[in-house]
């Protein structure tokens, strides 16, 4: 049974452990801006976790000229097949939510892939604000 | 540097009209006809051909630079082709090139200042038995002896 990734904003304290965990595990060496999950303060003591929604009708998948963005049927995540990517970078502006980042240095897009079904951010969130149900 | 004369686009259009519009397989053919009409392939002509045959411009440019038959720069009135086929080579075609270089002051691929002569080297024109051979426009000059070619050409 495929699990669903859920965010529970009311549990989030804005500690940004998820961002750190993500940037560590994805090898972006703790650069927060490159993390695939971001925390935004949206009000007094209120935080919102923002990460890829793995849209059913994903715009990024639609614009990719080489089918380099493929849904993993097991995890439900849209994953980047780097071998198929030609580096046109169109997926980044195509995402209406801003969850796609194109890494100019590497020439490939960077996005949340749910860590292959076992998201690191979920494991490290100390407040159970991220869950896989 | 030689200044290219303005290109008569009507003539370009007339040549292209002989071909089926949008049929990309006619590209080599069309460029050849354009070249024989204007004696070289100006940028405008290549662009017009690409557009007419619905070929990406870069493909037309690739084709125009790949094949030796095409020249992208204006050429002289008389095109002197020195055959460098094997037979001509071993019978002294390089001496002919040397003669032209000294006599006309231009080497292979070059055009004289007055736009009268362009010297080209070609690989075998199928007249090996008459080696070394020079073709001035359509005139074949057979068995060219050292020291004679410039005079033969200038005398017409």
């Amino acid at each position: 049974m495929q699990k669903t990734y859920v965010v529970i904003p009311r549990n989030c304290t804005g500690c940004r452990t998820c961002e750190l965990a993500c940037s560590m595990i994805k090898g972006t060496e703790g650069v927060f801006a490159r993390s695939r999950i971001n925390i935004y303060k949206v009000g007094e003591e209120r935080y919102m976790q923002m990460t890829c929604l793995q849209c059913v009708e994903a715009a990024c998948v639609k614009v990719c000229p080489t089918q380099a963005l493929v849904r993993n049927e097991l995890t439900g995540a849209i994953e980047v097949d780097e071998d198929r990517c030609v580096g046109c970078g169109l997926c980044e502006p195509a995402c209406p939510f801003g969850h796609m980042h194109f890494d100019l240095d590497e020439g490939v897009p960077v996005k949340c892939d749910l860590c292959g079904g076992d998201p690191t951010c979920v494991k490290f969130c100390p407040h159970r604000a991220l869950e896989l149900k | 540097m030689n200044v290219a004369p303005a290109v008569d686009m009507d003539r370009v259009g007339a040549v292209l009209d002989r071909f089926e519009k949008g049929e990309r397989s006619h590209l080599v053919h069309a460029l050849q006809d354009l070249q024989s009409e204007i004696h070289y392939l100006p940028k405008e002509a290549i662009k017009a051909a690409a557009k007419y045959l619905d070929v990406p411009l870069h493909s037309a440019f690739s084709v125009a630079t790949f094949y030796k038959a095409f020249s992208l720069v204006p050429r002289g009135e008389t095109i002197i082709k020195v055959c460098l086929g094997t037979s001509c080579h071993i019978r002294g075609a390089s001496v002919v090139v040397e003669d032209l270089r000294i006599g006309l002051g231009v080497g292979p691929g070059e055009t004289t200042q007055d736009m009268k002569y362009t010297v080209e080297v070609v690989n075998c024109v199928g007249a090996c038995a008459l080696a070394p051979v020079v073709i001035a426009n359509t005139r074949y000059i057979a068995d060219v002896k050292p020291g004679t070619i410039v005079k033969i050409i200038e005398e017409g």
Partner: protein
Amino acid sequence: MYIYIDGKKISANDGETILAVANRNNIYIPTLCHHEALDDVGACRVCMVEITHKDWGGWTNLVTACLYPVEEGLVISTSSDAVRRSRGTTLDLLMARCPTSDVIRWMAEENGEISVRYEQVDDGSKCIMCSLCVRACEKMGCNAIGTVGRGHDKKIAPPFFENPENCIGCGACAAICPTGHIEMKDTRTTREIWEKKFDFVACEVCGEPVMTEEYRDYAIANRDLPADYYTTCSACKKKKLASHFDKVGS
């Protein structure tokens, strides 16, 4: 069907290439001009493998793995002496052509046979004429660059070596180039590639670059997505959405 790669029996499907089967089975065959999303051309010759078959009476042949279709019982060696010699020569030749390319040096060292030094053709270029950029550009439907001339002087350039009309500044060519030959210069507001200058669309919130104007127009015209997708940078999109969610939540 079954084939044998370096002694291992491996199942393969009709129509697959040797390289595809090897990749699927994590058997490393070096490549330079191969890309999963583009048609193979067999230009770089580094994916050379040696093949034979029990019915061939001991006859072997060197073929490019990227193009050779598998057949039942094919016996493939990815690193026989003949393969290493061929690959070594190819890399030696490329070293002479692009002495400054790290990728080539690294591959040559890995192959373990840098033995012959050829006269260096030092024009400062790292281009190995793999044509990946041309094929990527074609894939984008732009056809802005192509090969020019032939033989040793062959180059990759825009038509007439000038400002390529069709280039939208997407940067795919630079991203795909295996040796980093294609230069793309970005500032906060402009991009320069193939000697063509582009202005970036600035994010209407923060002013950061989103994409080149030409690329935006291309995307709107060809990719069937609303025009307002391209006005904001991804970071600002995220921020905006976060605040939106908050309102919904409360």
